[in-house]
């Protein structure tokens, strides 16, 4: 596997692809398991559902439970997972070697920069193709096991579209990474575009006056043609592939035109912005000066920039969603009438005809938990394992502080940062609700924001405990993010089937959403479960870290 750059890249990345594929198949299994036997109920609903609603949830055929789940697989899970992996690989192609300081060594060999990009991009194409193929084959297997009829679906065509959109985002990250040498810039901007384009392509077509704008988002060319029903749309596919090729060429041009970095200047996006004279003042204000009075303070100032970005993202989303309700409320009331609770629950949306339901569906079901969990998992995974991987743990522990204090400091920082994002969530929703004249109760908003904070902390706690036990940052973040993914879908799918509904209580998302906090305010029981879980995870992290050798 070390024969050349391509095979080495495959070797380094194959496990991540396999884990991603396994995660998608696990969710397909979970979904089909939960829905088996519900075909009749779902078929009855099909005719009554307006197409616009189906477009938001990215599903064009819900005639059977199987098609609903498989629709989720190809429209949401598989493209998100594969595009995410593509971004991770694409961003690392050049910028990863620079960050690791291995670029000099690599190019000390008779290998051109262009050759390097081609080898690594080749590995990315190979791995994503294999990943898409495995999801295709695995889903067929799962469908057969549940005797789901796939004959009317063009699953293969849909997976071709999945592969194309994944490669598109992978190459977008490759373009940025090769051009800037900054992995964080490349992956951050790519993930941002991915989410923006997913939301834009889903929501814009609902509003007639701006429907055409959806075409600026790559996601539009991925599934607006409903490839699961209609087969491959060659026009759309060629736009994605063409874009991918252009970005590939751009990456080669970019990497050949600039000085390569040595990896010592490991600053992230914020550091990069600080170097620009025009941005210096603003970024310095945002990030403040590094404060080093304690572990908690130092750690939280390191995440100040990220917290502000995540907080602003939630704030603005929550802010715009309020006024939008007025324009859409007629459609939404019709939709709500047409749909039984079961369908709403399965897509994680509440009754969108009420302002609270609208906010739950648009802001609190996905955007808030996703943003919170991304931040806490990153902080949790880096808390202990990050210091070890950066080789700074030895120096930190050479000071007269017990290991428990390191965990305490990192935990305090996580709580502090996520509380800040919680406040942004509250403010955005409160102001958005006021702007739209929706009159959502403030205690309800506070409750929902607070539960979001607690939910984020639970998964941050998972990342912390795995990092404390293993000293491996990647393992910690994959484990926590994977668990969050599974927990989200478990809570969305399981309640639909009465026999399985009670299993949803195993998911932390259940306690986040169950009490409808926007309507009912805080239910202390739910908050206590999440807070207790977080406390247990942190407490478990202490002995795990104390008992083992520090990695050096």
């Amino acid at each position, binding site marked *: 596997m070390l024969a050349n750059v391509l095979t080495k890249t495959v070797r380094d990345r194959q496990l991540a692809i396999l884990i991603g594929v396994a995660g998608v198949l696990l969710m397909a299994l979970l979904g089909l398991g939960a829905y088996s036997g519900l075909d009749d109920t779902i078929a009855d609903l099909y005719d009554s559902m307006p197409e616009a609603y189906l477009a938001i949830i990215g599903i064009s055929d819900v005639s059977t439970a199987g098609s609903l789940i498989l629709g989720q697989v190809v429209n949401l899970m598989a493209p998100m997972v594969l595009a995410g992996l593509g971004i991770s690989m694409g961003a690392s192609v050049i910028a990863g070697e620079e960050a690791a300081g291995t670029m000099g060594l690599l190019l000390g060999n008779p290998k051109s920069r262009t050759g390097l990009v081609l080898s690594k991009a080749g590995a990315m194409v190979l791995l994503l193709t294999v990943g898409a193929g495995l999801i295709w084959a695995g889903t067929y297997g799962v469908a057969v096991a549940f005797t789901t009829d796939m004959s009317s679906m063009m699953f293969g065509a849909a997976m071709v579209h999945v592969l194309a959109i994944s490669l598109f985002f992978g190459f977008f990250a490759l373009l940025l990474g090769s051009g800037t040498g900054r992995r964080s810039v490349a992956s951050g901007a790519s993930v941002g575009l991915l989410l923006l384009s997913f939301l834009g392509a889903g929501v814009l077509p609902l509003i007639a006056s701006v429907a055409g704008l959806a075409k600026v988002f790559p996601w539009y060319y991925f599934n607006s043609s409903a490839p699961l029903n209609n087969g491959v749309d060659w026009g759309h596919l060629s736009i994605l592939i063409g874009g991918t090729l252009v970005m590939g060429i751009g990456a080669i041009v970019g990497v050949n035109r600039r000085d390569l970095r040595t990896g*010592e*200047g*490991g*600053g992230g996006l914020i*550091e990069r912005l600080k170097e620009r004279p025009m941005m210096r003042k603003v970024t310095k204000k945002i990030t403040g000066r*590094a404060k*080093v*009075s*304690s*572990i908690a303070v*130092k750690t939280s100032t*390191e995440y100040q920039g990220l917290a502000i970005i995540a907080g602003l993202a939630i704030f603005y989303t929550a802010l715009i969603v309020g006024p939008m309700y007025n324009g859409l409320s007629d459609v939404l009331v019709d939709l709500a009438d047409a749909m039984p609770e079961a369908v709403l629950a399965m897509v994680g949306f509440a009754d969108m005809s009420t302002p609270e339901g609208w906010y739950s569906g648009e802001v609190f079901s996905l955007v808030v938990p996703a943003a919170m969990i991304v931040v806490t998992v990153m902080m949790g995974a880096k808390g202990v394992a990050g210091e070890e991987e*950066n*080789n*700074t*743990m*030895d*120096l*930190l*522990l*050479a*000071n*007269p*502080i*017990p290991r428990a204090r390191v965990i305490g400091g990192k935990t305090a920082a996580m709580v502090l940062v996520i509380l800040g994002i919680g406040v942004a969530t509250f403010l955005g929703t409160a102001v958005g609700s006021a702007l739209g004249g929706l009159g959502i109760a403030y205690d309800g908003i506070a409750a929902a924001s607070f539960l979001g904070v607690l939910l984020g902390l639970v998964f941050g706690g998972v990342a912390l405990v795995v990092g404390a036990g293993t000293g491996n940052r990647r393992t910690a973040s994959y484990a926590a993010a994977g668990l969050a993914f599974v927990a989200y879908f478990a809570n969305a799918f399981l309640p639909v089937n009465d026999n399985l509904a009670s299993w949803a209580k195993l998911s932390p998302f259940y306690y986040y959403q169950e009490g409808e906090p926007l309507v009912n305010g805080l239910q202390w029981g739910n908050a206590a479960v999440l807070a207790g879980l977080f406390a247990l995870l942190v407490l478990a992290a202490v002995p795990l870290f104390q008992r083992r*050798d*520090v990695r*050096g």
Partner: protein
Amino acid sequence: MTSQPAILTEGLTKHYGDVEALIDLDLSVGPGEVFGFLGPNGAGKTTMIRTVLDLIRPTNGRALILGMDSHESAVEIRRHVGYLPGDLALYPNLTGQETLTYFANLRGGVDWSYVDELADRFNSDLSKKVSDYSSGNRQKVGLIQAFMSKPEVLILDEPSTGLDPLVQQDFQALLRETAAEGRTVFLSSHTLSEVERVAHRVGIIRQGRLVVVEAVDELKSKAIRRLEMQFGSPVDEAVFRGVDGVHDVTAEGTRVSVSFKGEIATLLRAAMAHDLVNLNSDEADLEEIFLNYYRDPESEKASV
């Protein structure tokens, strides 16, 4: 000054699975001593240091720092220990000043004027970001960090990595001053000349075992030296053959060359009995002794 050892290990052993990284290490380093810890790559130097600092846990045996158990009193011990890791990494987004402030805050009781003094001494610009430092300048920040609390025990793993010769000299002077104040320096190093210059005693570790612990002077006196003598008239080899400590004699006309170890007095007396015109002696080559220990598994038994 207390009489208990600054560092004491008893049967210290560390296994990683089947790999025996440290085997039954018994060592005592006294207060006010500069102890040089030598050994080839992978011999167990860093493992020993990280075990003593409770970063990793011994499989068997124990270590006492200033009489305190390395695990039971880990936190208290670190109040009295300054440490420089071999593979030094600092936080790239902090400046040198911020880095030191952070550790000073965690440690408590650091006199900032001493930090400034050290920075002056090492000619270290603390206003720059760590990510902008060269590796040598980063190392200086690491060194200041280790010394700034005036700890009773300094544990330094490869401290002169990347330092230029002038700074190395300053650093060695600092080590001597530290020892003169009764503080202890445990110095793991590959720079044999540095160890030779500053260490009172050295220990050599090979494949996880401590193969020798000896005072530097003692080792030097055991070193084989070459002495070249020029006489006014030819001298017979046999004159030197029987002399104490002499190994090997070659005579070519009026020039006689001998290898010897130990005191030079007897050898000189024998030479003075003849018409000695000139003599030339090589400095005892400690490096060669060290290397012998590195190389030959049996050398600890053989007389040097």
